[in-house]
């Protein structure tokens, strides 16, 4: 996809190619309507993140002592919590924070893991050994436990949640990028680029990276869901996001105590939002994978 703009084809050829990609995309979506639905859902979530805070009916932080623990009604669609805060508004506003955490950690690990992986696959030798050892060591930990340890050590902030989520995903990106770069290190276009006098780093960034971009995009959307779950899990146990900030994981934690007394709505709605977001990203990732690499369908 990205390589269209970089390849030296004429405009007509590029158009034909993009046409065929479009047709292929339509074919995949028609084959699996779930992917289309997931894409629609994704747009909805992105909208919530973008304009959510401006359209919600109540201030997510404003408490209302006259309406504490109200069950869902027309006035409060998702009910209210112990302090009388409107849960619907809180769930919508939280989208932005959860989304930001997930996207920034995925971008961070894409930059770190993607680059380390390409370099390892392309140069081989010592680079490969060092990168491989680092990701093996990370993989030696149960991932969530390592994330807990990192946040505990670095300090209890949202930035460190982003960092920890990025670090535990590092080996996955390295593995994909390394395998893809390794296949292409002696490809014709790489040799041509080298013959025309491009340096190693230029070849890595301008020739190999654009070619493995589609596969990396699939990896990004597959790990987005995990990143959201990881961040929400960390805030559920009290790391990172502090109350009263609206965030799905911490909202579920706030409602956890009320479950046994029957006030289900406090934990259910943020939990459901979390589930839908993760579900959407997983379906989208599967769909993207079918689009990019039909052989890996399961």
């Amino acid at each position, binding site marked *: 996809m990205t390589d269209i703009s970089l390849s030296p084809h004429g405009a007509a050829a590029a158009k034909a190619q993009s046409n065929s990609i479009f047709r292929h995309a339509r074919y995949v979506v028609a084959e699996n309507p779930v992917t289309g639905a997931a894409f629609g859902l994704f747009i909805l979530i992105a909208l919530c993140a973008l304009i959510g805070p401006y359209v919600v009916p109540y201030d997510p932080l404003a408490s209302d002592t006259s309406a504490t623990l109200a069950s869902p009604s027309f006035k409060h669609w998702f009910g209210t919590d112990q302090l009388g805060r409107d849960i619907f508004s809180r769930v919508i506003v939280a989208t932005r924070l959860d989304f930001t955490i997930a996207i920034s950690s995925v971008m961070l690990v894409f930059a770190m893991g993607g680059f380390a992986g390409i370099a390892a696959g392309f140069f081989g030798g010592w680079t490969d050994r060092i990168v491989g050892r680092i990701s093996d060591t990370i993989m*030696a930990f149960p991932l969530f436990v390592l994330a807990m340890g990192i946040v505990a050590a670095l300090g209890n902030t949202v930035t460190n949640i982003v960092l920890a989520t990025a670090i535990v995903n590092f080996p996955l990106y390295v593995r994909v990028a390394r395998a893809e770069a390794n296949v292409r290190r002696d490809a014709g276009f790489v040799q041509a680029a080298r013959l025309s006098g491009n340096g190693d780093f230029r070849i890595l960034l301008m020739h190999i990276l654009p070619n493995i971009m589609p596969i990396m995009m699939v990896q990004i959307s597959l790990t987005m869901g995990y990143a959201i779950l990881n961040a929400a899990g960390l805030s559920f146990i009290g790391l990172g996001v502090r109350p009263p900030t609206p965030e799905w994981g911490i909202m579920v*934690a706030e409602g956890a105590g009320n479950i*046994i007394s029957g006030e289900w709505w406090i934990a259910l709605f943020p939990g459901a939002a979390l589930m839908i977001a993760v579900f959407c990203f997983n379906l989208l990732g599967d769909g993207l994978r079918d689009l990019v690499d039909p052989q890996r369908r399961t």
Partner: protein
Amino acid sequence: MLTLISRRMMLVIPNLIGVVIITFLLTRALPGDPAAYFAGPAADKQAIEQIRVKLGLDKPLIVQFGRYVADLGHLNLGNSLTTGQPVLTEIKNRLPASAELTLFGLILSMSIAVPLGILAAVKQGSWIDHTCRVVATAGVSLPVFFTGLLLVYVFYFLLGWSPAPLGRLDVFFSPPPQITGFYLVDSLLNRDLSTFRAALSQLLLPGLTLCIFSLAPITRMTRASMLAVLASDFVRTASASGLDSRTVILTYAFRNAMLPVVTTLGMVFSFLLGANVLVEKVFAWPGIGSYAVEALIASDFAPVQGFVLAMAILYVLLNLIIDVLYGIIDPRVRLET
């Protein structure tokens, strides 16, 4: 077989070294002053300096690392700031609770996921296959703490079938005398059926939560590897030779399909051990996960560090066991070494 084990043991060593280095770095080389941290917020400059010398933080990093490794060699993980107890004893006391929960969840999950995966592969494209796909995708999407809370709401609050989600045993029961540390096993060994039933009813919901969580990867893997095996030559030969489909599927295909599934168990354990922390918090389960969470909230770092280290060592050992198991199931691996 012994050569396989010893060769695999050699691979464990660099992993363990990496784990120790990382847990060390997590405390020392990272931003923030551990001395000020251990001294507490009220300490003045002099007190912080004293603690720095006491903890050896004024020495070069490499010396500190040597000290850390020596401490580990003496099985000294430090003391908890809040309880004053040695971290190691606490972890040792709480480990059986976590292990019982994790194993129970895993066994439950295997006993559902493996038949489901086989059925989905055998009847590819049928409604079982579609159910399997939905279950697999939904399972990875469900936040484990959320599943736990839903189960509590339905089975405790609405239906009243299960006891309050508070720990391993109802307060009216006393824990069985410790033999293995697993309440289910210990109560059976003591022929104490009522305690067994009480422990089981407490274990059921958290176990089910972990089971739902780990269902997805095992089902997926079973289905995929079963499909691959069913398409292979020896299965075709077996059914062409007139063996009934039951024999072909269960004896010929199943045994071969299990190999990749055993390998995925490593990844499943990585997820399970992490999910365990969240499930323990939801069900007030007195395991090492909730110990670490309590310490985290109190900013008590030694237990967290001990917990991370213990989990990593446990995980490395589990992977070792899985590989050895693989050698037992598949004779070809043994021949290669």
